[in-house]
């Protein structure tokens, strides 16, 4: 048998949903474990093999001094480092703390704030170490995860597009909900989900974060022209990808 590349899956500040996407690959899991050696994946097994690793999948954002150190070691041990999900790629929902005072946030959540050692911000992995590829989504799309792993194994570029959700939405044959009066983040949101929400007649929530060259200013202006308040614009952009630049910058313009 040829050498199987060694895979490690790491968790930082996150909900584990993206790692679950890997376990959710039921039909492909056997082929996956034949093609790669799962060396470290605590969500699946306590057995952990030491590095180095050929491919590391990193979930979660950096929110503590300990994690800021730990990610450096993960990077050192990984030939290729791929972030999975909105937390690892943009800071996640927990990056809402970036827009408030950390003491207030900690005091609101914990009865004894003095026990908590945390950073003032939640930051993406790329703010700490070089990242080879960012797979977007809250959560990630498991088909895209398999594509990234297959591409890594074959030594090719993953077929993961960074254009708008609209392109997927139109391919799918959805009737545009925004034109019909439903506020939608699709025109500035990164593709990858397959335009799930518009397919069910809901506006896009922006789970995959900003698309390439996202013109959130034009979108916000249009939302407001169609009757949305500044607060609605602010809140729509302040979700799982609040700290992603194009969302963060535009949301700030709509801060009361």
């Amino acid at each position: 048998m040829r050498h199987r590349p060694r895979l490690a899956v790491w968790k930082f500040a996150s909900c584990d949903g993206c790692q679950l996407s890997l376990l959710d690959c039921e039909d492909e899991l056997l082929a996956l474990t034949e093609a790669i050696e799962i060396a470290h994946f605590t969500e699946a097994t306590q057995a952990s093999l030491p590095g180095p690793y050929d491919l590391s999948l990193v979930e979660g954002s950096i929110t503590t001094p300990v994690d800021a150190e730990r990610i450096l070691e993960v990077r050192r041990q990984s030939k290729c480092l791929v972030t999975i999900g909105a937390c690892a790629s943009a800071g996640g929902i927990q990056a809402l703390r970036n827009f408030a005072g950390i003491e207030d946030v900690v005091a609101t959540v914990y009865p004894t704030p003095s026990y908590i050692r945390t950073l003032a911000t939640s930051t993406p992995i790329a703010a700490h170490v070089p990242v080879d590829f960012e797979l977007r989504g809250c959560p990630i799309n498991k088909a895209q995860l398999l594509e990234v792993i297959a591409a890594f194994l074959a030594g090719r570029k993953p077929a993961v597009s960074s254009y708008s959700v609209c392109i997927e939405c139109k391919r799918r044959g959805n009737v545009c909900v925004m034109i019909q009066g439903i506020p939608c983040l699709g025109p500035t949101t990164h593709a990858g989900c397959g335009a799930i929400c518009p397919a069910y007649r809901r506006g896009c929530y922006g789970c995959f974060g900003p698309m390439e060259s996202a013109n959130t200013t034009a979108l916000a202006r249009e939302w407001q022209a169609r009757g949305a308040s500044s607060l609605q614009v602010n809140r729509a952009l302040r979700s799982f990808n609040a700290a992603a630049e194009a969302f963060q910058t535009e949301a700030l313009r709509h801060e009361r």
Partner: protein
Amino acid sequence: MTAGQSGMARCINLAALQVLIQLLAGDGYAVIGPIRRDDAIVYDRIAGITDLPAGWTDDQGPGHYALVRRGDDALFGYAVGPDAWKRFLHPPVETLWRAQREGDTFTLAAPRAPAPRYAFLGVRACDLRAIAIQDRVFCQGAYTDRSYADRRRNAFIVAVHCGGVGGNCFCASMGCGPRVDAGFDLALTELVDPAPHRFLIEVGSEAGAAMLARLDSEEATSSDLDLAESVFKRAASQMGRHINTRGLKELLQTQPHHPRWDEVAARCMACGNCTMACPTCFCTTIEDHGSIDESSAERVRTWDSCFTLDFSFIHGGSVRQSASSRYRQWLTHKLAHWIDQFGVAGCVGCGRCITWCPVGIDLTEEVAALRMATDPGSTVSHEHP
């Protein structure tokens, strides 16, 4: 016997239209026509006339689409749907081939399903022209796109003359309508008032003549013909938009640094909706996928858009980084370079790019602004929808 011969105007009633749909289905066609879904009139499979959007029309404006009731029971009393017929003839996702590894070699296989035979009911003049343009793109020149050509060759087209046009329509400016002139098997003119509800039916091909011969039809009366003529005139007088095409190719090809490109880019989100909705935009990208165990691979072709960064990605990066350069590429290709490339403009005046732009960018307005500003001292205003 004489029924269906070119030049002989015939009329059919609603029952005969129902029979037409059934005969097409019986002949093995997948019959596609207008239906009401998701608060829009879209093209999808139909089984009979009860599937058609009787009594509904569409109110269209820049970035605006809404269904409203008509005062009558017209079946084709709307302008155009959100999707063009290219969804069927040039599908958004198409697997080109699959490969299977066998030891040290591999075998190639064509995709499984053969192309369906489509019958389209309700194709407008603008969309007929759009199909003719895609025919040039895919079937003329050195390389024919075989899967498109197969679907196209097998298609049966029932056109419908526009009885009333939409707020974003400008087919008359582009010389593409509203009257259907060629490229159909049968063409209908819907006559609703005065009763009875009926259709003037014209023949455009041998297949169309053969089909008409199987339908109960009557010779059209002179009042039918007069009524049809008034329908055409009404449609032609209702164009919601207008483009002055005089010297347009030269105008666009000599304005690469016009400030209007940056102005429109401030509004444009480069989301690509216009290109997806456009009935002539044909660009695709190719993706190769391999299985995890490296035992199989497939090549997939999907609709692409010149508004994406990847579209112009070459060694070193994307050539068109700015939204202004991407909008300029789209508009100048559509209205100018297309003429150099294919002998006709790539725009048929259906207005879909205006309706389905989330921020309501109106290419007729952009063209007018580019034209005005070539006159020094003139100012350009933009009215936001």
